[in-house]
């Protein structure tokens, strides 16, 4: 079953590349997304067997992230079917500078999307660290052409920064892999294979100094991919220049998968008794990310960059949660779900706004609620959700983390956490509410396209539901995931 999850998008990608007509390709995209989600749903009922000698395995942590990815991809696929239909072919005029540019050919876009899905799936199921590395690097390479969909110089600049910074980060993670191999070298005996389960089992034999060094490199390397400050510099550029669908997938799914790399090593560290070392580092990076995001969100001129910095903030919250340990880890895992759904919804809605207003500037866009009723409502609702207001899902997860911090007696951390959340709330509120209200000359030119509103609406409903009620199955999976992380 795991192989099905991997082969499905892979084969679809190959097929999409060679399919000439557009409509069948878009249908293929949506169908593959649906099939992938269906198989993922089956894994909730039936635990799939590990394959490839234990290298590919679906445990609760992986299952959680896989489900998030799959759900997001369904929304993204439906949205992009409509988006690609609306994007005109040939030379188009750029919003900001008026120069002419073209889009990348559609087969490339669809193929890369499906390859992206395949790579992310591989990240969630691989339990062998080397394979995990290959998969994370593959996600970078599959997503770079996606960022460069609008072929003009700003997106090229963003793509270049993304490629360079993420490749260097992931190269450092490779060095971390080698350090881990040294730690697992068993003092000259048979080396312990770098599979998560076997490392956990042989934890007492691991060389602690090298394990710690490996964790540091993993944190820096995969943290670059994840968007932790101060390694986040590629994030705002990439997310603001990519098409909104791609930004939604990057923020909602890819950052989580990068985090998974760090989490797998944290599992090993916990088993080796070195949990505290990793946790201190995670708390530090988490708070730093929140601080940087807070500073840059206030007065942000571009609303897609604002959303990108919000992703940095939430990655910080995730890291902080795992770093605090205990009940906070449960909160962090729940937050991963909530944030992904909410951020994806926000980006898709931002795409709708951009299509009508033709401007990314927060000072020019006004009156979204009037011009685009559905999108406007989702925009405001999304803002409340992402900043942690009840009754939406993120409130619960953020509150859990806060409570855990206070329970552990870490008052400084809790106060900093609250201060940053408040700063971000104020910063985003001024931008979002000003955008939603006011008068403008813009006309929508017709009712909002169905394919552009159903996906974000569905995601929004999910976020609302998660705020009110967490299904038992989800609760169980999150608890197992949290327990594996200490």
């Amino acid at each position, binding site marked *: 079953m795991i192989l099905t999850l991997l082969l499905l998008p892979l084969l679809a990608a190959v097929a999409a590349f060679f399919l000439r007509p557009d409509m069948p390709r878009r249908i293929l995209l949506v169908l593959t997304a649906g099939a992938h989600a269906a198989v993922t749903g089956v894994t909730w009922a039936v635990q799939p067997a590990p394959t490839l000698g234990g290298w590919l395995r679906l445990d609760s942590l992986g299952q959680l992230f896989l489900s998030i990815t799959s759900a997001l991809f369904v929304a993204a696929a439906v949205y992009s079917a409509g988006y690609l239909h609306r994007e005109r072919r040939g030379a188009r005029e750029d919003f900001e500078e008026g120069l002419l540019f073209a889009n990348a050919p559609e087969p490339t876009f669809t193929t890369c999307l499906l390859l992206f899905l395949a790579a992310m799936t591989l990240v969630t199921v691989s339990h062998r660290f080397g394979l995990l590395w290959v998969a994370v690097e*593959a996600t970078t390479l599959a997503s770079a052409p996606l960022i460069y969909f609008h072929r003009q110089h*700003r997106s090229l*600049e963003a793509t*270049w920064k993304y490629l360079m910074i993420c490749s*260097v980060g992931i*190269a450092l993670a490779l060095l971390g892999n080698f350090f881990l191999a040294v730690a697992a070298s068993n003092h*000259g005996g048979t080396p312990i*294979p770098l599979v998560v389960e076997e490392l956990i089992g042989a934890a007492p034999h691991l060389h602690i100094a090298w394990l710690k060094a490996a964790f540091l490199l993993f944190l820096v390397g995969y943290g670059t991919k994840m968007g932790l400050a101060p390694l986040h510099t590629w994030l705002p550029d990439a997310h603001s220049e990519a098409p909104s669908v791609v930004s939604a997938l990057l923020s909602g799914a890819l950052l989580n998968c990068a985090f998974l790399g760090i989490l797998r090593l944290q599992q090993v560290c916990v088993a080796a008794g070195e949990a505290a070392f990793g946790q201190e580092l995670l708390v530090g990076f988490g708070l730093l990310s929140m601080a940087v995001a807070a500073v840059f969100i206030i007065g942000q001129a571009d609303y897609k960059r604002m959303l990108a910095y919000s992703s940095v903030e939430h990655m910080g919250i995730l890291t902080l949660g795992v770093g605090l340990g205990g009940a906070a880890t449960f909160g962090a895992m729940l937050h991963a779900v909530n944030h992904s759904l909410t951020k994806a919804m926000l980006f898709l809605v931002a795409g709708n706004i951009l299509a009508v207003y033709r401007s990314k500037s927060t000072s020019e866009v006004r009156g979204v609620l009037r011009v685009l009723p559905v999108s406007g409502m989702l925009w405001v609702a999304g803002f409340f959700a992402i900043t942690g207001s009840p009754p939406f899902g993120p409130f619960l997860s953020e509150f859990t983390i806060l409570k855990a911090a206070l329970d552990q007696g870490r008052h400084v951390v809790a106060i900093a956490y609250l201060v940053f959340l408040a700063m971000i709330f104020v910063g985003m509120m001024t931008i979002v509410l000003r955008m939603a209200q006011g008068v403008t000359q813009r006309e929508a030119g017709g009712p909002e396209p169905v394919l552009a509103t159903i996906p974000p609406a569905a995601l929004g409903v999910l976020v609302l539901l998660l705020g009110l009620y967490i299904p038992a199955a989800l609760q169980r999976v999150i608890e197992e995931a949290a327990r594996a992380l200490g």
Partner: protein
Amino acid sequence: MNLWTDSILVLLALASLLLLGSSRIAGCIRIVAFQGLLLGLLTLTVQHGTPSLRPLALATAIIALKGVAFPWLLARVLRDAEVRREVDPLVSYTVSLLIGTLALALSLWLSQRLPLPTKPVASLLVPVALFTILAGLFVIISRGKALTQVLGYLVLENGIYVFGVGLVQGTPMLVELGVLLDVFVAVFVMGIALFHINRAFDHIDADRLAVLRD
């Protein structure tokens, strides 16, 4: 065998040092190609006894990719971009060489301090690996042309590979090939990006790509 390994490691360190001081980009590409060749040979010389099929295949793949394919690709980009020299790097060449020498000293000192659970194949291995990694990172940070940054990334990967080949036994073939494939596709994608950058901007100065900022 030890003499061969030592010589190859010394040549690797010298190549990294030379890269720090070169301003002609074509020369830099040739240096990195030479490093790729050395890396393939190193894979063979660290084997005890005659190398079996697996190291031979791996060495061939490395020489083919890092010694031939990547330099050819980058040389094509260079020809299209019609650039000859790297002018005005962030750090001048003399200072770069000095920093390189300091980095070499630092790597030697660090490797003395690192407690290795298993003895590496050659005593020079860890310092040369560390030095190559540092040199690659330095080139990425201090050079302006996007092509030189890709070369720095390749050198970084080379250094990491040296570390792997000397210290890690028992990595399955699949993972090693996967790593190689990833680096290949990465360089391929970067090469395509460079083509586009050249066409869009009419230059390949990465430090002039600064429109997006807060």
